[in-house]
């Protein structure tokens, strides 16, 4: 389906989907959202691009392989366990640092953000793996 209208629309809707994914990822600890929803939205952006163009083109242009995304996410989930483990707290305790920025006020950073980012990367990798292995099966033999 080589529709020019759809390709132009994809150029803008892709950034909208990625922006919603980033919003859901960053506020997911206190509000609806989180790593899984953000991963689904970011995967949907790539699926939409593969609907507008062809799957082969998206697979060729994609900078990293889906397995790399998946394993990077899993390693990041494992890294988020380390700070609580090294300071003799119970397993998977959230460790927070709260630096005070000059204009924006207090910024809450912690291991749940690292955990959510890991889930985001691994869910995106799984969705891309589904898409590419269903549509281009000869690349995955």
């Amino acid at each position, binding site marked *: *389906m080589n529709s020019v209208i*759809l390709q132009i629309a994809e150029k803008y*809707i892709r950034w*909208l*989907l990625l922006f*919603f994914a980033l*919003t*859901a990822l960053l506020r997911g600890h206190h*509000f*609806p959202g989180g790593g899984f929803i953000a991963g689904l*939205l970011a995967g*949907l952006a790539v*699926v*939409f691009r593969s*609907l507008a163009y062809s799957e082969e083109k998206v697979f060729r242009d994609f900078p990293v392989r889906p397995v790399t995304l998946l394993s990077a996410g899993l390693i990041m989930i494992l890294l988020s366990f380390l700070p609580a483990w090294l300071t003799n707290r119970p397993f998977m305790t959230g460790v927070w640092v709260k630096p005070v920025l000059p204009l924006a006020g207090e910024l809450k950073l912690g291991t749940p953000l690292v955990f959510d980012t890991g889930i985001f990367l691994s869910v995106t990798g799984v969705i891309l793996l589904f898409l590419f292995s269903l549509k281009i099966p000869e690349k995955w033999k």
Partner: protein
Amino acid sequence: MAITIFIFIICAGLLICILRMVLGPTMADRAIAMDTATTVSVALLVLLGLFFDRYVYLDVSLVYSIISFVGLIAIARYLEKGI
């Protein structure tokens, strides 16, 4: 009181969409009825967010409308040349 009347009107619109989805002679009619039902339910979500005073429903309706657009594109591509 006014919001209750609005919600009844929107639910009537949803019922009409479901009727077209059941009756629709071709597959494209059903797909269009599904997309219209999604748009109507986005309006229902916004009204419920106003009624319950939860602004989170607005974000849900934004993401839901974009996802329904991508889903309709996928259905159109399936109807035209198959997956």
